[in-house]
Every structure is written in C-alpha cells, then in structure tokens.
C-alpha cells in the first residue's frame, strides 16, 4: 500500500497533448496539471476525448503530439508496462481464468515479487473482499468485481490510478455506495486518482478538481463548487446541472455591477464586463430564482426581475418546478424548494422571475452554437 507520503508522488502534467484518428481530432492541445495526491475528474459526454486522454496517460495510445509528464519525467512514449500508472478499466477486464487472489497479485508477480500473499490479503481487506480470494471473477457481483479491479490496480502502489468510467456498469444505489468507498480508499492510500466519467453527479461527489471536457478541449477547470456556482460557458452551465441563459447588450457599468439590457428588461450582473453596446450573456440557476407575483416584491435584494407567464408547473416532492415564458418567448426554469411556505403559482398566471444580482454568472460565449448546448432537461433535478 502506498505510504501516503506525498514526497514520493509527482504531479501529472499534460503538455500540448493532442491525438487524432485520421481526420478526427479526439484530444486537442490539452494542457493540464493534475496535482499529486488529488482526486481529479475528467468530465464530459461520450466522444469528448476524456477516455483517449486517459489511455494516453496509461500508455495504451500514443499521443500524436505533446507530452505526458510525471514531475519532470516525460513518459509519453514509455510502454504501458513501464509506467508507474495503473488503470481500473470500464468493464473491469478481470482475468476470467484466474482466482481473485491471482488477479490481484498479477501486477506484483509480473514485477518479480515472490511473496504476494500478505500484500494481497491486505488489499482484499481494504476493498472488503477478504474471504473471496479463491473465487473466480465470474462468481462475483458487479460491485465486487469493481472492487477487485480497484484492488488489482492499487496493489502496485501506482503514482497515478486511472479510473475509466469505473462505476458505469453498476446500478444507482451501488454506484452511490462505491463513490463514497472509492473516495475513502483514496483518502487512505493517497495516490493521485484520475477519474473519467460522463456522470456530473459522480464527478462532483468524488473529485477535488474537475476538468469539464468538450470536443477534445478542457472547457473549464475548477472545484465542483466553482464549476457549479461560476460556470464560464453555456456548455458548462448546462452540463453541470441546469441554467437559464440570457443574452443581452451592456447598457451601463454601474459601480461594481454591469447593467445588461435583455429585450428591454434591465438586469444587473455582478462585476464589470465589457463596454456599453457590447453583447453580454449570463446565466442564473433555476434554484436561485424565485417566482413572485407581478406586483409585490417582498425582498429588496431580489433586484432582477423578468416578467412572464407560467406555462408549466410540476411538483416533484423535493421542489416545485415552474416554466415561465418571457415576453420574448424564452422559457425560464425556476425550482422552488418545498420548504412549507407554499404560495404556488398557477399555470397561466402572470408572474415575475426574480433573483439576486450576485447569483447571476457571466458567460463568455454570446449565443448558442448549436451543439454546444445540451437539450435543456427540465425533468432532471439540479443537485
């Protein structure tokens, strides 16, 4: 087991990493530093290049150009069996002809370690599978196989453990449980974990730092909270949870605020952005907005308000989700938490969607560019 001494560990750095398959650019000039000992997630939809990136770190693909570095050592062209990096594969790839013990001992044996019994025992204990050592992978459940795959990789004390959609094959309940288990294993062993997933909730639950990938590039890098509260682009704003994105024109820079005109409605955005006359987009989370009756605004802090008509009300138990159509035809989502102070708006009612200016976040891209925006999924609850 790694001693957890972070002095041994080196940062994983990707420098100008690029991978093309024919005309298709899978990974495009990726620059990324993954600090030693962190739990790092590469998050993105399928085809965004995250698995290709992982495979280049593992050595299973060679980069078209660019470097993979551990500390200052360039490992870009090192064969996979010479890298201090191990992988937990998507479908586990356990050796079906070997027992669990032999699966876990595989890496140690290949490196000439004679006595593997103690290490294997400890590792199986860590993943809570003591007593399963003599079974074959086929006799284990999905969750157990997943833990064997983790043990088989971790026993080699890799500097970097790569996890390729490790929980994809598990059902929701088991996935939640394994997320917490993996997190606690990482706390104990201290290796750098790089986790590839398309599941934003999984990434937010487990990772210290998330890189949201899109079309072979990193769209935004940050802690789960930063990404959620301050997404920089429409893509991130809608990939992590859901957002109402508004497009307008800067009309005034007023103190610390920027005033944006959105179809005749003047809305305040924190910070100074652009110059008057320039287009500016921003977003606000559905749960940060409230639906208030047109006339009475009870809270003076709710300075931003967009009038509209309620077109849909759905009660999900945890919250009530409203869809409000604005004067210019855009539909805004509002999640009102079910906190007992129920003053439900009815369908067809004239209301104002209001929010505090500080809850709005500026977006760097002005208008939707087609594929950049996932379909607004009103049914999925925000985390």
């Amino acid at each position, binding site marked *: 087991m790694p001693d957890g001494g972070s002095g041994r560990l080196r940062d994983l750095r990707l420098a100008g990493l690029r991978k093309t398959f024919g005309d298709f650019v899978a990974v495009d000039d990726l620059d990324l530093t993954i600090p030693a000992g962190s739990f790092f997630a590469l998050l993105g939809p399928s085809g965004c290049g995250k698995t290709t990136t992982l495979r280049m770190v*593992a*050595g*299973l693909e060679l980069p078209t150009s660019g470097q993979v570095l551990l500390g200052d050592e360039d490992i870009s062209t090192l*064969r*996979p*069996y*010479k890298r201090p*990096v*191990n*992988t937990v*594969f998507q*479908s586990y*790839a*356990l*050796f*079906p*002809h070997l027992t669990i013990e032999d699966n876990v001992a*595989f*890496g140690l044996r*290949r*490196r000439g370690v004679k006595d593997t019994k103690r290490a294997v025992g400890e590792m199986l204990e860590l993943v809570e599978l003591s007593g399963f050592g003599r079974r074959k992978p086929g006799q284990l459940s999905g969750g157990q196989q997943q833990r064997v795959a983790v043990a*088989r*990789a971790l026993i*080699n004390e890799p500097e970097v453990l790569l996890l390729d959609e490790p929980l994809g094959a598990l059902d929701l309940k088991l996935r939640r449980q394994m997320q917490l288990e993996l997190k606690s294993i990482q706390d104990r062993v201290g290796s750098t974990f790089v986790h590839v997933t398309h599941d934003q909730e999984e990434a937010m639950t487990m990772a210290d730092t998330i890189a949201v990938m899109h079309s072979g590039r990193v769209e935004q890098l940050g802690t789960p909270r930063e990404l959620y509260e301050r997404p920089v682009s429409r893509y991130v704003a809608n990939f992590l949870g859901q957002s109402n994105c508004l497009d307008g024109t800067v009309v005034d820079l007023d103190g610390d605020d920027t005033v944006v005109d959105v179809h005749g409605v003047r809305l305040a955005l924190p910070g100074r952005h652009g110059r008057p006359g320039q287009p500016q987009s921003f977003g606000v989370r559905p749960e940060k907005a409230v639906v208030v009756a047109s006339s009475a605004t009870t809270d003076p802090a709710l300075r931003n308000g967009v009038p509209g008509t309620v077109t849909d009300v759905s009660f999900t138990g945890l919250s009530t989700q409203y869809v409000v159509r604005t004067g210019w035809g855009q539909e805004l989502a509002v999640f009102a938490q079910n906190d007992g102070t129920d003053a439900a708006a009815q369908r067809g009612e004239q209301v104002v969607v209001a929010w505090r200016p500080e809850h709005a976040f500026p977006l760097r891209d002005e208008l939707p560019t087609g594929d950049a925006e996932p379909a607004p999924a009103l049914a999925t609850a925000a985390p």
Partner: protein
Amino acid sequence: MTAVLPREAPPTELEAEQEEEVHAPRRRPPWLLLLPGLLWLALFFLVPMITLASMSLQTGSLQTGYALTWTWSTYTDAWATYGDQLVRSFLYAGSATVLALIIGYPLAYAIAFKAGRWRNLMLVLVIAPFFTSFLIRTLAWKIVLADQGWVVSALQWIGLLGENGRLLATPAAVVLGLTYNFLPFMVLPLYASLEKIDPRLLEAATDLYATPARAFWAVTWPLSIPGVVAGTLLTFIPAAGDYVNVQFLGNPGSQMIGNVIQSRFLTVLDYPVAAALSITVMVTVLVLVLSYVRRVGAKELL
C-alpha cells in the same frame, strides 16, 4: 401498494390449469425431436459397434461361417503381430498434431487479432481445401513431394536432402500429409477460442507490467486452452485411424494401423483380427483423450 392485494387466495381451477399448460412441456422430454437422431445412432452406431465387438471374439471363416467362441487370444495375437503399426499410428498422429499446432496457432492468432478486414477472406482460405476431395488433395501431395518435384530439388540444393534423398514414400511424407489434411481442424477451433478473448484483458495485462510475451503466456494462452484441446483432438483422433496418407505417400515400412485393418477386412478377409484391432484403436484413443483432457483441465469439453 402493500395494502390491497387480495392475490393470496388459492388459484382458481382455471388458473391452475393454465399454469399446468405453461409448465407441461418442460417436464416431458422432447422425444419426438430426439427420435430421428436416436434411431440413426441405434442403426448405424450401436448395432455396428456390437457386431464389431462380437466379431472380434468369434472364430471361423467366410466359408464355414463364424461362431462366438469368446476367443480373447485374437487380441493378444493381433497386438503381438501388429504392435509396430499400432505404435507407429499414434506416433505419426502425435507428430502431425504437434506440427499442426505449431503451424496452426500462429495462423489462428493472426486471423483473430491481426487480420483486420482480411479476416473473413483468410478464414475462407483455411476452409477452401474442403471444396476438393480428401483423396485428390492427398494425391496432389504425391506430385508435390515427387522425386523430380521442386520441393525435393530445393531441399537437395540447400543440402537438407542427400543426392539420392527423397521425400515420397518416407514416414516424413506421411506425417506431412497428415498435418496438411487435418490443419483446418486445428485452426478453426483455435480461431474460435482466440477470437473470443477480450482485447481489454491484454491491455489490462500490459497495464499491470506484463511485457507482450508475458501477457501472451499469462492471459492469451490459458484462455485459448479450450481451442487447443478441441483442435488437437480433432486432429489426433482422425489422424490415428487414417490409412489414405500412408497409401499414397508412405511405403510398406510406414504402414499405420488403419492400413492393417483395411487389408484384414477387405483383402485378407480376416474379420476377427480386423475387429479386434478396431476395438483396440478405439479404446486406446478413448483412454488417451480422457487422460489428456483431464490433465489439461478443459472439463467443459466433457
């Protein structure tokens, strides 16, 4: 959902009947489907087997007729007389099997992992010889290995064969012929089991510090054992009983047990000895196969 489900009541008669109908086919063995196969086996396998076994213990001649006299000495006499041919049969068949494995494994491996879009074409080429008769193919080898043929001249030129050295009518030619004729039976099961191996397992092995060679011996080879067992059996069993290759490519001194049985049955008309030798070959092959399969541990084949 838990409150009102009055489903605990005993099933009505109708329901019970329906249930009966649903499960009934599972209880009755599908005799009708088995019938043609069973009849076929009884007529053309079981009856001849019993006849053969009984014939091996009879004495007499075609003119006087045969009587079951339980003459076990037919066996010991046959073994004493044709021991050489028996041993030779298994030796030749064994050599051909090993050769076929050495040639067939890399071939099957290449088709399964490296052939890409040529895979189907290569498989067709492996099967292609079956479009010609077994006899014609073996006769063709007679021409290939002929004293004036290019193979012999080439081997003489590089010095592997002496000035008057020849291939035709030697044990080597018999083994080569057997290898050639049964190679597809080796390649196809090998391919089938190699093709099933998940390439991610090999990636996992290299990720876990195995060099390509070690990954092969630790993962690919053990996972292909069922194919190796099936291929070697499909090669060895028919090769041990073959007599065509010796007939065309061998000489009187390289006769296999199949030739002896053929001539005892059809030329000499010595039915009891022919039958005793047949039974001997059958039992020996069965014992060899069982112990081999048990040793290799491919129990799913049995």
